[in-house]
């Protein structure tokens, strides 16, 4: 059941930041994640600050240098259907279309998707785990078949839940914010926080800070990108394993590019071993095989999620075949 809270709907960004700067306030964009978090009692909130009056933060615009700028309040459905995104950044449109369910995509926003809380069933359940301020990670010694195999350091083994963050990171997108100390611009790639740094926060946002826009740089003329997601059921479910791939190609040859995994780690996980295996190479069967093998490098699987190693190999192999 929801706790008691007050609700405000400021009309300017300045007022929004002011409301948020007082402790105990939380942003409500689409509310699809926030209300669940409040119901599950995972955050102490007594004021809900709606962004819904900030109309400027919605929509997709082309920038002068041929990139795109997406308002944080743009819905996931809008992202998945926008013709410019579909044409220039297909992996982002695909990622967005793989999010949750149609209802949630209609209501949820891109900014909210980047800032959503993880979906560990201990964290969302009646367990006072490390991420909630408790002493232990229950998933480590408990039921973790859905959990991370990379980057967890056996501290907190959540997987980052977003399907839009991996494509955004692969596309070298940036997040613009506004906060009590003014504006910042941060790469999506470093926007999320690993447990070894702080197991109780998910993003580098400071108190009172709001995502305003997401910037996409102009894609290289011959970029191929794609997002693939495997899940336990085909809709309304988070990634068991996924991969966003954005490659700059010269014919069959990979000039450079990024591979970012979902369902893999507490943050969108850049698979540099895969990138290294394909950089400068022709995407033939042998390279793809080698790249798929390389995905397991640095993994620290746990007893119940070792299957993810093979799963990621399969995903990378299929995806590289799909973009070649």
């Amino acid at each position: 059941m929801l706790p008691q809270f007050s609700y405000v709907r400021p009309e300017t960004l300045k007022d929004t930041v002011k409301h948020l700067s007082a402790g105990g306030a939380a942003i409500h964009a689409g509310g699809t994640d926030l209300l669940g978090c409040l119901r599950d009692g995972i955050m102490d909130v007594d004021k809900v600050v709606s962004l819904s009056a900030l109309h400027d933060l919605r929509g997709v615009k082309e920038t002068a240098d041929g990139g795109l700028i997406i308002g944080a309040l743009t819905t996931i459905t809008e992202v998945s259907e926008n013709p410019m995104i579909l044409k220039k950044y297909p992996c982002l449109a695909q990622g967005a279309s793989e999010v949750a369910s149609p209802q949630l995509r209609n209501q949820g926003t891109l900014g909210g998707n980047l800032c959503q809380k993880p979906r560990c069933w201990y964290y969302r359940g009646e367990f006072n785990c490390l991420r909630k301020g408790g002493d232990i990670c229950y998933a480590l010694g408990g039921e973790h078949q859905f959990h991370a195999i990379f980057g967890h350091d056996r501290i907190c083994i959540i997987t980052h839940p977003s399907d839009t963050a991996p494509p955004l990171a692969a596309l070298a997108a940036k997040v613009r914010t506004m906060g009590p100390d003014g504006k910042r611009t941060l790469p999506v790639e470093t926007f999320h926080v690993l447990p070894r740094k702080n197991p109780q926060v998910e993003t580098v946002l400071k108190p009172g800070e709001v995502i305003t826009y997401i910037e996409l740089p102009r894609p290289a003329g011959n970029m191929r990108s794609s997002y693939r997601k495997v899940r336990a059921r085909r809709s309304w479910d988070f990634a068991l394993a996924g991969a966003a791939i954005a490659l700059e190609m010269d014919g069959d040859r990979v000039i450079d590019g990024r591979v970012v995994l979902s369902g893999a780690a507490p943050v969108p996980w850049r698979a540099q071993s895969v990138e290294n295996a394909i950089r400068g190479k022709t995407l033939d069967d042998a390279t793809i095989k080698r790249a798929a093998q390389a995905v397991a490098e640095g993994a620290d699987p746990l007893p119940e999620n070792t299957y993810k190693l093979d799963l990621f190999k399969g995903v990378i192999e299929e995806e590289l075949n799909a973009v070649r």
Partner: protein
Amino acid sequence: MAEDSNVYYTEGLPVPETPAPGDKPAFWKQTDVVGKRIPRVDAYERVSGTAVYPSDIKLPNMVYGAILRCPHPHAKVKKVDASRAKTMPGVRAVITGVSPKVKGLNWKYRNYTGPLFDSHCRFEGEVVAAVAADTRYQAWDAAHAIEVAYEVLPYVADYKEALSESAPKVHDGGNLAGMDEYERGDISRGFAEADAVLEETYETPCQIHTPMELHGCVANWDGDRLTIWESSQGVYAVQSNVAEVLGIPLSKVRVIGHYMGGGFGSKLKPGKYTVLASLLAKQAARPVKMILTREETYLCVGNRPANTMRLKAGVKSDGTLTAFEFECIGPSGAYPGGGTALVDWLVRDLYKCDNVRCRSKDVYINAGTARPFRAPGHPQGSWALEQMMDALAEKIGMNPVKLRLKNIPAISQGRSEPYTTTGLKACIERGAQQFGWKNALKRAKEQNQSASHIKRGVGMGACVWYVGGGGPPSTVIIKLFRDGSVNLNMGASDIGTGTKTVMALVTAEELGVKPEVIQIEHADTGTTQYATPSGGSKTVPTESPTVRNAAIDVKRQILEMAAEDLDVRTAELDYEGTEIVWRKDKSKRIRVTDVGRLKKRGVVVGVGYRGPNPRTKTVNPFGAQFCEVEVNTKTGEMRVLRFLGAHDSGRVLDRLTYDNQVFGGIVMGIGFGMTEFRQLDGKQTGKLCNRNWHDYKLPTALDVPVDMESLPIEIDDPEANNTGTKGLGEPVTIPTASAIANALYMATGIRFTNAPVSPMGMCRRLAARKEG
């Protein structure tokens, strides 16, 4: 085995009969409305939102109830302090285990009776206190402001460990809830005669009901009369339970359950919440609405127990089955709930085999108690038996369809008596033909020989359902008003299956009236007649013959009245819906609305009783399902491409509601076989991990095939009852998962003995194969 068949109906009960036993109505050879595709009589109400479900009820001065539940799987309540809760805003009533009003009140689980508030909490979610307050939120906050001191006890979460010496005891008597043994023939002789013997251990997960509408009720007292609106499968079952617990006469408890949003067995009986709502309502002197949260329903309103089954089977090289040896263990949960009920029934009854031995052990664990779940025991048993049948077929080099056809029993071996009809052979044969089994098999083999990492398989499974013949008691009243309109009054619920619709069709068929003139009153103990709850696939075969009998009784009376007006003999009159006609001279006729005595009396009341079932035969539905799947062997992703359900449930009353059941059963079976499992945090806390619709994964529209086909195998069964109907709602989910498992085997060569088969499990097995 050991299923309490009283849940569904009473065997051997002497009942009044209308018409008299000698006057059995003729079997319908041809029908006008029955069997057609007719939309539901309440479709508009359901779709437009005007249908009022218990969750929608709002009474003047109504307040809301909330329950405080034990957060530990095993604990003793040492102290409860509700003093703060009582002073919180809006609070109207607080009940705890020490409230004087609850002293001596008991709660029953099958053969176990314990206190309503048991200070020994044996599962996470046991009730500890309850509060009523002006709003849901106030009630929830106050309930959770009650301070409870628990002595936390060691728990047992793994049913396979429950009988070990070191396992904590759920009950003082130990963790064995019950045992069952069955034997026929001589299995050692059977195995000796076999050319091939196989043995395998299978596991199925605990599945949770999760119906769309949450469990709950609204309770209201008017003096000493209690009215309850409950989301229920049977209003009379709620009435008798609540009256018994509270020690008040049945006549003082009125239960209403017009619309309800699904139960699948978990709403055959009321819950403690029903009684708590009634007690709170009394104390608050206001109506109390008590609708559980989704999270609560995952803990405490039932489940299909997990099972581990070992099956050893012998077969001759010509396909003759020579022996089955079956062992099964499963958990009732914290209280008797039928942890292994009916799991062995398919082994006993489905295929011809002279030598069979079955043993099962039902155990207690510290988790929510099982309740009947759509075809209790059967999908589990099917998971073992149907995979074993395929394995045997492979072993002796026989087509799996042929092996099954070779072993069609002539009688019900589990009961040693004949079936009234058995469609098992027809379901398998015609199902296989309609499905295009041979071509599908060929296509799959071709694809699997290609280099593609997408593999394909087809699979099947067949079934019988333990009951499904319905039976007495039931009473139905039909009123024919002087304007020719009709009122059908029956106690049965419509649990979403279309009961109202098909009963209207039976009435219309017998009376020759249009379905639109029939108004239905149902599921109200204050105004409608006694009916057992809708479970066991018994509502159609129980109620439809009763409805027909009531219609016949109306007809008999109206003919007698018309005979006076026309001055002819009653026996010479025919009833043609709107008119009554003299057989000897068809021009001599009278409109029903002109019948003198009807005009004066205003109404004719016909009463129908459900007559007895055939004495020496059993009435059971049969089925066979076929499916085609695809597996991505790189990622473990699976796709169910198509399904066909061929079901023999006697006469089809409405083809639309019939197909709904077939498709719904298949969808539920896909969940059982591929996505659903209860996850306890067994190693650390014993608490439930997945208690919402995201973590507990029901199949979505994208997980089930668009290509689903229903093939009714209609076989005339006049002996079963006067409408020739058998149950359908449960058999349709029995062989689904096992058919999928068999198809997955064909696609991958891997036997998935543990359900569900998720992409995680598929990946694990594919990887193990690569290494091994």
